[in-house]
């Protein structure tokens, strides 16, 4: 058998383990194994790959004899071809260039297979197996980072599983928000007790009225009773108003606190969260779900407490008055309780669906309305309206189902409790008629009043489930954000004052999902002060490179170092404060121009902001607008042209005084005159700073002293402009095309051709 401590994703099946051990030569060491879940025909089956220092041994029923062995020295190339829902490990043979798929698997082990491909390819090129094994080991370690309880991927091995650690009763978690309001709630509770007690007085007064006052025609007692009741009602409603006010305030404060927490938490969630979760869904949670919870909390805190005390008080009085009649009145109660549970189970998934449908409607709103220019330019108004109507109708369908259930059930409950009342009339009335010494008229009338009061709380708690399920769904959605893993600040506290600007990518691999690798084997070094142009076709991975440098995504393999320090080991805020990022589509907030520029440095004074606006060639156009720096920009910077927004974005970056600058196609969408202004601004800015410029304009690339050419996620060329032009490779072709299109563009502009 192979050594027990061999590195593997899951233990090798015994049979394969034995066969592998038998195949091993005396001078051969088994280094790691990979157990797969598909055979080469794509059917679910157990397959395995064992990597030794000399060979790959693959067990698959589709190979001749069920096994395939391949010396590393026979390998020219090895890669993992990703397909839809599965992938294959492919080998290209050195001797005849033949390609062969040797191992097939689902995405559950795709990254491990990547490591295998790299392992065998590098050893074939002469690398030391033990050195290569370290990379494989690191990949396996990362894969092992799953929670042993729920199987959820952890951000690193040994990290706490938030899913398991904090998954308690949902409302127990929300209790944190109740704590600051405890005193107010206890006072309100005391008021509730008083008002409940007062509410129990009138039915008893009815008994006195019938049995004593009216029977004895005692007018004096009548008036005393009436005035006493007046006092009771006045006090009850005064205290009730005070209680209602206090509870409302308390509910509002709790929900405001919850909203703040959700919004704050949402700021620190990683970009990968926003890649998977629509902003509409997040907005729904902050606005809609908190309102649902608020309504529920008010209902719980106001009515539920009162109803509970009322129920206890009433049943006590009823038992004291007549225990037989009380038992009769309790007959419908079990039916109501079981009905409530049955209803709850049926309505919960419906409310979940309603929430998802509503989040989809919100998504459409937040997605399409800001893009109204696109809709209008492509006469898509009707399509947009139809799309919205379709989503809205889906919501309506689900809401109707809930409407049916949430109305049928209360009606059934009401019917049952009415039957209970009738039972009391029948039995109690019979006793009054035939055994008046046992039960008086006054007592029966009083009892019926109490009984009808009693069914009120029962009904309330039966229908509370409806609100409860709705609120539960909202609470789950809210806690989804609060419990979500924020961006990991591994290097928290380890701040850096200045960065010289050396950047190194070492064996970096990255994919957003498991289907397609976005970046493969990225290696380069940029020295401080270098101006680097990054070029490539659309989708080649240029923006992903800078996103990784900005630490917007952490789940990459390999290392990214700045000034020889791994960026994951630097405090996140400190690190990002050293980088100025000018995006292709500069985002502006709905705020003044001044505050949009000062966003990067809120403590900057007026003259600093004016100075950077100057550097960015923005001050002159700002000064000429009616409200100048007080100009209020619309959502997304409406009110400025693309070039003006870009220059404000550059001013924002200048204010930060960053050590590293990143420009993501900064002059992509502007005319050449504006481009010239922006280029001038960029030139002022980049002096002495390490600059990365994703660009396709020749004019931008000419400033760069190094060019990185990216194609299909790999760096295919790296060097100066002149070196790459001599190479006559991809860069040369890109420049030729660009030169031609620029000549045409300049020609059109010269003719003022629109």
């Amino acid at each position, binding site marked *: 058998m192979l050594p027990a401590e061999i590195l593997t994703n899951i233990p090798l099946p015994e049979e394969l383990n034995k066969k592998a051990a038998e195949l091993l030569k005396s001078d051969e060491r088994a280094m790691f194994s990979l157990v797969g879940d598909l055979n080469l025909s794509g059917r679910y089956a157990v397959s395995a790959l064992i990597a030794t220092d000399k060979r790959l041994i693959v067990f698959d029923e589709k190979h001749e004899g069920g096994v395939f062995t391949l010396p590393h020295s026979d390998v020219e190339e090895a890669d993992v071809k990703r397909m839809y829902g599965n992938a294959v490990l492919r080998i290209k043979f050195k001797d005849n260039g033949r390609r062969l798929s040797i191992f097939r698997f689902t995405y559950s082990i795709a990254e491990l297979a990547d490591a295998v491909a790299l392992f065998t390819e590098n050893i074939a090129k002469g690398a030391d197996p033990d050195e290569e094994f370290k990379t494989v080991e690191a990949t396996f370690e990362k894969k092992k980072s799953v929670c042993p309880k729920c199987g959820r991927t952890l951000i690193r091995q040994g990290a706490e599983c938030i899913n398991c650690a904090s998954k308690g009763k949902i409302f127990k978690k929300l209790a944190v928000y109740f704590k600051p309001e405890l005193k107010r709630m206890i006072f309100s509770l005391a008021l509730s007790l008083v008002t409940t007690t007062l509410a129990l007085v009138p039915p008893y007064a009815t008994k006195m009225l019938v049995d004593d006052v009216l029977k004895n025609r005692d007018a004096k007692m009548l008036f005393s009773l009436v005035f006493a009741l007046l006092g009771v009602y006045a006090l009850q409603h005064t205290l009730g108003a005070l209680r209602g006010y206090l509870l409302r305030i308390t509910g509002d404060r709790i929900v405001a606190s919850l909203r703040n927490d959700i919004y704050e938490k949402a700021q620190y969630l990683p970009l990968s969260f926003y890649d998977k979760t629509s902003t509409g869904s997040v907005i729904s949670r902050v606005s809609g779900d908190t309102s649902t919870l608020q309504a529920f909390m008010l209902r719980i805190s106001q009515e539920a407490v009162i109803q509970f005390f009322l129920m206890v008080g009433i049943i006590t009085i009823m038992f004291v008055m007549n225990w037989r009649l009380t038992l009769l009145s309790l007959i419908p109660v079990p039916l109501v309780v079981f009905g409530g549970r049955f209803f709850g189970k049926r309505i919960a998934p419906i409310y979940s669906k309603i929430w998802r449908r509503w989040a989809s409607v919100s998504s459409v709103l937040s997605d399409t309305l800001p893009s109204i220019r696109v809709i209008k330019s492509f006469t898509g108004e009707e399509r947009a309206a139809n799309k919205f109507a379709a989503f809205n109708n889906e919501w309506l369908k689900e809401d109707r189902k809930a409407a049916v259930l949430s109305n049928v059930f209360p009606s059934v409950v009401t019917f049952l409790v009415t039957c209970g009342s009738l039972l009391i009339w029948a039995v109690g009335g019979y006793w009054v008629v035939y055994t008046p010494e046992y039960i008086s008229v006054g007592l029966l009338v009083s009892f019926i009043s109490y009984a009808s009061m009693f069914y009120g709380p029962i009904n309330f708690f039966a229908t509370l489930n409806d609100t409860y399920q709705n609120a539960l769904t909202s609470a789950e959605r809210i806690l989804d954000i609060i419990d979500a893993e924020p961006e990991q600040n591994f290097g928290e506290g380890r701040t850096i004052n200045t960065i010289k600007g050396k950047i190194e990518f070492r064996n970096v691999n990255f994919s957003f999902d498991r289907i397609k690798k976005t970046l493969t084997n990225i290696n380069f070094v940029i020295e401080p002060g270098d101006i680097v142009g990054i070029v490539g076709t659309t989708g080649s991975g240029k923006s992903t490179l800078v996103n990784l440098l900005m630490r917007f995504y952490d789940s990459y393999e390999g290392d990214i170092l700045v000034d020889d320090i791994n960026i994951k080991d630097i405090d996140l805020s400190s690190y990002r404060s050293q980088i100025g990022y000018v995006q292709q589509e500069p985002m502006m907030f709905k705020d*003044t121009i*001044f505050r949009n520029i000062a966003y990067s440095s809120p403590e900057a004074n*007026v003259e600093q902001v*004016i*100075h950077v606006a*100057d*550097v960015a060639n923005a*001050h*002159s156009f*700002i*000064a*000429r607008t*009616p*409200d*100048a*720096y*007080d100009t209020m920009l619309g959502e997304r910077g409406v009110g400025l042209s693309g070039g003006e927004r870009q220059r404000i974005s550059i001013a924002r970056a200048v204010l930060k005084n960053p050590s590293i600058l990143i420009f993501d196609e900064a002059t992509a969408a502007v005319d050449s005159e504006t481009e010239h202004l922006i280029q001038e601004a960029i030139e*002022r800015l980049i002096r002495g700073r390490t600059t990365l410029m994703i660009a396709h304009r020749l004019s931008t690339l000419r400033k760069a002293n190094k060019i990185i050419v990216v194609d299909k996620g790999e760096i295919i060329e790296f060097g100066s402009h002149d070196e790459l032009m001599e190479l006559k490779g991809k860069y040369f072709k890109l420049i030729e095309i660009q030169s031609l299109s620029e000549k045409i563009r300049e020609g059109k502009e010269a003719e003022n051709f629109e």
Partner: protein
Amino acid sequence: MTERTYIENDNARITRGEGILLKVEMYDGRIFEDVEARRLFPVTGVYKYITLLDSEGAEQAVIRDLRNLTPDSRAVVEEVLGEYYLVPKITQIEKIINKKVKIIFHVITDNGPREFEVKSIYSDIKTLYDGRVLIKDSNDNRYEISNLNALSRDSQRLMAPYL
């Protein structure tokens, strides 16, 4: 990029030119003729950072704080700014008629009585941190309530639902 010229205290003498144009004589010998004064912060900083633009719109100098100029220079600059920026101060609100799609204001300002329409209370009526209320009408004209509490109680009551 040349360094910005700041005018403050007595490092310049400002006199009136033709219309709303100004002549600035710096005490270092430089002269800027026919410049127009514009506020860089017309909403939040009426006295601070007044830029002086030439006929091409290029900035020649910036007045840091109007209040620190010599009295004569200050008076001249305030005069031209008063002509350029017409923002009447509302001293009394006579009535406000809410027609759902628009709100019609009848007011008395320091410029005389005025009637105007406001389209949206959300974007056209703003209360600033210093207590001023800025109103923009449907023709983009601006009005200001310098101090809401200084208005009569009736005026305050009429204005309250729109703040």
